């Protein structure tokens, strides 16, 4: 059991590939994507029908490079990113983010 960071990205589905590439480049391979999420934001006038919700738990030191990779995408296409704390219970099977 050790401390990790939860990165959550909410964005239009057209950005998905770009955001996952941003995670990848920062060394974060593990992620989970929830599609067909419906959202609203003051930025977009209408209800966006096809958003994605991306969750990735990673090492605290990976947060900074990820943000650097993702921010330009969000700046160009919109979307939001949130960081919070969590504790990881990793199975022995994988070596993800150890």
């Amino acid at each position, binding site marked *: 059991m050790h401390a990790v960071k939860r990165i959550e990205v909410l964005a239009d589905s*057209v950005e998905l590939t770009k955001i996952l590439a941003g995670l990848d480049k920062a060394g974060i391979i593990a992620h989970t994507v929830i599609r*067909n999420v419906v959202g609203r934001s003051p930025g977009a*006038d*209408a209800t966006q029908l096809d958003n994605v919700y991306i969750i990735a738990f990673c090492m605290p030191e990976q947060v900074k490079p990820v943000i650097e990779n993702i921010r330009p995408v969000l700046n*160009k*296409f919109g979307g939001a990113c949130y960081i919070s704390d969590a504790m990881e219970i990793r199975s022995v099977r994988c070596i993800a983010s150890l």
Partner: protein
Amino acid sequence: MDVSLIASNVLSPPVLFFFLGMLAVFVKSDLEIPQPLPKLFSLYLLFAIGFKGGNELVKSGASQEVILTLLAAVMMACIVPIYTFFILKIKLDLYNAAAIAATYGSISAVTFITAGSFLTELGIDFSGYMVAALALMESPAIIVGLLLVKLFAIDKQDGDFSWSEVLQEAFLNSSVFLLVGSLIIGAVSGEKGWKVEEPFTQGIFYGVLTFFLLDMGLVAAGRIKDLGKTGTFLISFSILIPIVNAAIGILLAKAIGMPQGNALLFSVLCASASYIAVPAAMRMTLPEANPSLYVTAALALTFPFNIIVGIPLYLYGINLLWG
């Protein structure tokens, strides 16, 4: 104008279900067709018209009429975004003008299909190769719209998009890909292929279209509340430009000598605007433009206008000219 034409359009099940969908939104019924069911219907419709069109394309061969029709289609797909762009620039900024222009230069497959059903009901023939015209008209407007941005962007750093991504979006987006693929397969698989597919691609076609238009009614009506933000300029644009584009299309059709059925389909292609493929491409390549504007104009105004008034109106005009 012949009232019976409007009546027989408006009283056809697909158009009535389109109204029903709109009504559901207005009276706040909780009727909805959840995703991915509308996606299923639209994949099906593209598959079915592509397959049928390809099958008939082979039979008709590449006569002069066919070639002229397809050339006219590509021409209109390139010219419409140019002159609409300059009209739109009167009131809108570069990015929105280009995105809306691209939307109106491209086409709406469902409007085309509804016009086809209308012709079938009236017993007017049309050629299978019109589906090829449909396919050819989807993509060019995307390219033209982005070229206009490149030309008119003052700050050259703005509007920076990769052309490989643009071409990808224009020619390999799922609508174009499935339609062209089905067209080619329909052409290749011949009479034997047609026979086994027929109960699926033809038999239930009209019913699926009806269901899909119910959903389109729900979606279009849901967009109507955004019209306030759109402004009267864009509202007028989305009603008047289809008529203008259809008129040009009709004159071109007359010049080429298309039969009446084909002329209607051609004018409908010119008049219709894309609310799926082009908006998706624009979000990727012109994120500076506001999707609310281009989707709402095409979906909440031009689409219903064409479905309800446009199709019989253009046929009326054609009947007058062809006499």
